[in-house]
């Protein structure tokens, strides 16, 4: 197609040429599409100029529209909204943009808006709106909570969503969907300006702003399995199809496993891997700058300390970066990464995304990355220039992880990258969003319903569900009774508003969908800060228990005011926290390849990982069996803890959670029995105090896909899965206040726990919207019927191998010792269980 002459493009091309750059095809294509006022999705990996695709396109458009005065025309209003998932990204993206403006003489200003933005800066932005605003989803919602938000977005030309693959599939992605639908439709309303005429009462801008047509929406995404769907979700509010522009930049990837010298002595379970720490030292020393990815914050603390211990010469040249580190230090680390001052940074997903740190030439992944996409993303943090090879080292935290890396290599070879499933019907996010609008300009129910229905997330919402949502906001649920003073959203002249200043303020502090586990500071009694630790881990400990943190053995003394007070301990017996990292589930994709990898367990001479595990596989074979991809292994082991039933479907933890619940339910139907259920990515364990009646006469029926839906429903009700989902939902939906500086003390009488709320809703208001959502989320995310059915049908076709090992096997060990134990199931009467436990106690 012949491109019409564009001053803007010429200006930008000149600038690029002057800098010695040539635009990539995907950038040119994006510029063309923007010039044609199209929306779409750019698919490009991190670190190849993806920012410039949409951003330069926006600049060109501005120059073309203001050819005479693009370098002097100020106060143009907001032109480009740049939504980014991470605060850490904003500064770098902003700096890159400002450089362009500075060098091309375009008059735009760049503003950054997120949790770190100072009040002064906010005020400045309010007075003079920058042309580009880089913002997180949470801060964008806060903008929508302002009274003048409609005006602010009236001039907007493009909404860009960076790292859309990261946002989609989470509730933050839903926040983005909601914000987009609101902005594009209020722009539409501006154009026809009918709303302003009606809006006399508010005394807002009576002058119709000259209508801007709907802004374009552009997503930028790394490769995921369902790019088409990613585009559909993002553009749904526009009701337009849009285009996908793919960058075809092949980067070479080299994956190197770090092998223990003696695999026989390497642990069968664990999450830390610090035994191999010394092996990292030469790698770090031979690199310019090295990023060491650790799966959790807590473990990264341990790794940082350990590296300093094994390589004291690195002191000052290595740093730690994760989300709970204070901002100043975080920024310092990022700056030092840019300037190449650091040899290595121990980090978590906090450095997954964003602009390049050019000096980085080596990446080390510690522990399983649990997915192909994440592994590729991290590998991509090194060797940025096209043509350069990205090098990633993999350090296993336990021996079987080597099988995982063999599978990862295979998956990358097959380009089997997983999909991100978008979330559907998140009423918690919707409730929060409606309150956000209600403290801003308010909303009209019918109008907003039509807007919300245009999002992908809420497209299937019925009018009854919508009414229920409104009812929840205005009347506090269904119960409308005497003695009630429920107060949140009130309706005046058909407009929904929050008038209480206190409720509005509390809501503002609370906007967001990231519900983090409370982190507690660990301090020595004698003084001295050791690190942070997740509350849920500490809550399981008793004073006197010894745990390991930062490589030190610490005895818990007490917990006081969010501080865990400890003293050093000489005890050898310690608990190593099973950290959050265990919570990421292996994707289905990788599961399949993992199963296939086991086929080659004793025969593969090619794979260095498989070869190194030879002795482990031999032991597994001797004690039990090595499952082939067309087999399902079921092991039954009896020991002093009880009767273990172990099943190895290799489907990833998430599917195992669902499958184990169904199995427990189906066994529990045959006789009264109680189970403690644990799982990892390879399999799951049903542990009982009595023999589990599973043998070759009934084992196949346990995996039947008949009656699946009914059994799913019943097993959800009999385990605690919904209760766990409810925690986040209750926070997002506004039932629980998380930490709130300053106000915390005053709100003390409003504190309650999610488990208590779950209990009282289940008993007193079982049809509550948010309670229902927690069941719904289990049903559709965790217990996804289609996926479970596929898995069960596969197993049903498989040969089921029943094995009764005399002792714990290499496969069972990580589950029994270190599996994530989450659910309990019982078909026994509570009173009977108490009686049994009491009898057991007496025997001791």
């Amino acid at each position: 197609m012949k491109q019409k002459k564009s001053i803007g493009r010429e200006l930008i091309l000149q600038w690029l040429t002057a800098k010695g750059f040539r635009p990539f095809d995907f950038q040119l294509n994006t510029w063309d599409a923007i010039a044609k006022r199209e929306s779409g999705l750019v698919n490009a990996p991190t670190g190849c100029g993806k920012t410039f695709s949409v951003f330069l396109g926006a600049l060109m458009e501005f120059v073309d529209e203001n050819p005479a005065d693009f370098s002097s025309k100020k106060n143009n209003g907001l032109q480009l909204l740049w939504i980014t998932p991470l605060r850490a990204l904003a500064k770098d993206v902003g700096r890159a943009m400002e450089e362009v403006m500075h060098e091309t003489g375009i008059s735009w200003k760049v503003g950054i808006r997120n949790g770190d933005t100072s009040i002064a800066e906010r005020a400045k932005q309010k007075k003079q709106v920058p042309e580009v605003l880089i913002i997180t989803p949470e801060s964008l919602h806060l903008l929508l909570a302002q009274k003048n938000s409609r005006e602010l977005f009236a001039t907007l030309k493009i909404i860009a969503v960076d790292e859309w693959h990261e946002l989609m599939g989470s509730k933050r992605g839903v926040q983005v969907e909601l914000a987009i639908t609101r902005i594009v439709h209020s722009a539409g309303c501006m154009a026809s300006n009918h709303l302003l005429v009606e809006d006399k009462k508010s005394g807002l801008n009576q002058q119709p702003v000259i209508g801007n047509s709907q802004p374009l929406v552009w997503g930028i995404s790394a490769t995921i399995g369902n790019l088409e769907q990613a585009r559909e979700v993002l553009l749904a509010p526009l009701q337009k199809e849009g285009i996908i522009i793919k960058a075809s930049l092949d980067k070479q990837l080299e994956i190197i496993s770090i092998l223990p010298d003696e695999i026989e002595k390497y642990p069968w379970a664990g999450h830390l891997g610090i035994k191999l720490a010394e092996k990292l030292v030469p790698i770090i020393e031979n690199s310019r700058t090295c990023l060491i990815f650790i799966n959790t914050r807590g473990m990264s603390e341990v790794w940082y300390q350990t590296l300093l211990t094994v390589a004291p010469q690195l002191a000052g040249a290595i740093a730690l970066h994760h989300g709970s580190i204070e901002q100043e230090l975080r920024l310092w680390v990022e700056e030092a990464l840019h300037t190449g001052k650091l040899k290595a940074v121990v980090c978590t997903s906090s450095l997954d995304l964003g602009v390049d740190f050019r000096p980085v030439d080596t990446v080390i992944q510690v522990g399983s990355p649990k997915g192909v996409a994440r592994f590729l993303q991290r590998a991509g943090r090194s060797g940025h220039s096209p043509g350069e090879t990205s090098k990633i080292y993999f350090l296993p935290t336990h021996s079987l992880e080597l099988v995982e890396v063999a599978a990862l290599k295979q998956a990358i070879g097959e380009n089997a990258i997983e999909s991100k499933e978008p979330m559907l019907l998140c009423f918690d996010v919707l409730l929060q969003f409606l309150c956000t609008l209600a403290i801003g300009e308010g909303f009209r129910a019918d109008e907003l319903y039509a807007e919300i229905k245009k999002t992908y997330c809420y497209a299937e919402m019925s009018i009854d569900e919508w009414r229920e949502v409104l009812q929840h906001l205005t009347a506090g649920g269904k119960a409308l009774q005497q003695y009630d003073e429920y107060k949140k959203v009130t309706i005046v002249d058909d407009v929904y508003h929050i008038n209480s200043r206190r409720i509005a303020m509390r809501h503002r502090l609370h906007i967001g969908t990231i519900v983090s586990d409370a982190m507690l500071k660990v301090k020595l009694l004698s003084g001295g800060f050791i690190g942070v630790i997740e509350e849920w881990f500490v809550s399981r400990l008793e004073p006197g228990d010894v745990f390991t943190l930062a490589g030190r053995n610490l005895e818990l003394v007490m917990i006081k005011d969010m501080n865990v007070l400890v003293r050093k301990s000489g005890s050898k017996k310690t608990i190593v926290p099973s950290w959050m990292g265990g919570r990421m589930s292996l994707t289905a994709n990788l599961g399949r390849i993992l199963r296939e990898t086991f086929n080659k367990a004793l025969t593969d001479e090619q794979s260095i990982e498989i070869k190194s595990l030879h002795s482990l596989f031999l032991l597994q074979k001797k004690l039990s069996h090595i499952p082939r991809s067309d087999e399902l292994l079921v092991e039954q082991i009896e020991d002093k803890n009880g009767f273990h039933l172990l099943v190895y479907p290799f489907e990833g933890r998430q599917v195992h959670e669902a499958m184990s619940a169904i199995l427990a339910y189906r066994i529990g139907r045959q006789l009264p029995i109680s189970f403690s259920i644990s799982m990892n990515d390879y399999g799951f364990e049903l542990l009982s105090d009595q023999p589990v009646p599973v043998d070759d006469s009934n084992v196949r029926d346990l995996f039947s896909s008949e009656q699946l839906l009914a059994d799913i429903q019943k097993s959800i009700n009999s385990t605690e899965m919904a209760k766990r989902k409810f925690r986040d939902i209750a926070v997002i939906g506004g039932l629980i206040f998380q930490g709130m500086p300053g106000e915390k003390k005053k709100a003390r009488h409003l504190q309650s726990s999610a488990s208590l709320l779950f209990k009282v809703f289940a008993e007193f208001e079982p049809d509550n919207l948010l309670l229902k959502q927690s069941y719904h989320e289990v049903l559709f995310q965790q217990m996804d019927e289609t996926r479970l059915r596929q898995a069960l049908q596969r197993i049903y076709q498989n040969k089921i191998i029943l094995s009764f090992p005399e002792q714990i096997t290499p496969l069972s060990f990580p589950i029994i010792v270190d599996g994530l134990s989450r659910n309990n199931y019982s078909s026994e009467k509570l009173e009977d269980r108490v009686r049994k436990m009491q009898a057991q106690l007496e025997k001791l």
Partner: protein
Amino acid sequence: MQSSIQHIIANNTFWLSPQRCIYWEEEKALILSDLHFGKTGHFRKNGIAVPQHIYKEDLQRLIEQVVHFNPKKIIAVGDLFHSKENKELELFAKWRNDFHAIDFILVKGNHDILPPSWYEQKNLTVKEGFYQINEFGFVHDPNEFNMAETAVKYSFSGHLHPAVSMKGLGKQQLSFPCFHFTKKNAVLPAFSKFSGHSIIKPKKGDLVFMLVNERIVPL
């Protein structure tokens, strides 16, 4: 109604009710703790939509206990009310009026922050610190009570919302709200169903009565 369990302390007979209160036979007194009345109202007034039925059910259970034991007095060992005044308290006032012949003693807890005149109007006798009948004392928080400084030999408390956890083979674990009796002190479970609990570690010689499905089960 499930049956109560008899418990003797210093020749006095106490009936532990599965409905989370104690009836003291000699004094014809109903002892309860941590009703947290008005908690749902306080949440709802602040825009948190918790189910409203809870407070009604709590009060209904109290009425049933009163009808069942027919006490001359009620002793609340603190946190009878949750926070500032709200409309739900009107229901309490109405109930109080219907049962005005019963003495009602409130040993103040940390949540009882209503103005003195309010308690007075509702015909509640308020005790700061502790309250004593014979050698028995009543105090909200057992940890803030120094028995040695008083003539009290045995005290009844609340505040802690005690629960106890049991472990069994196969990593099984269950926990239940409980009555906790030590040699010198009894801690009652929270009366309100809208209250969390904290797990206690009973010491040797302590007596614990768990609430299992509205039944009392000695540990």
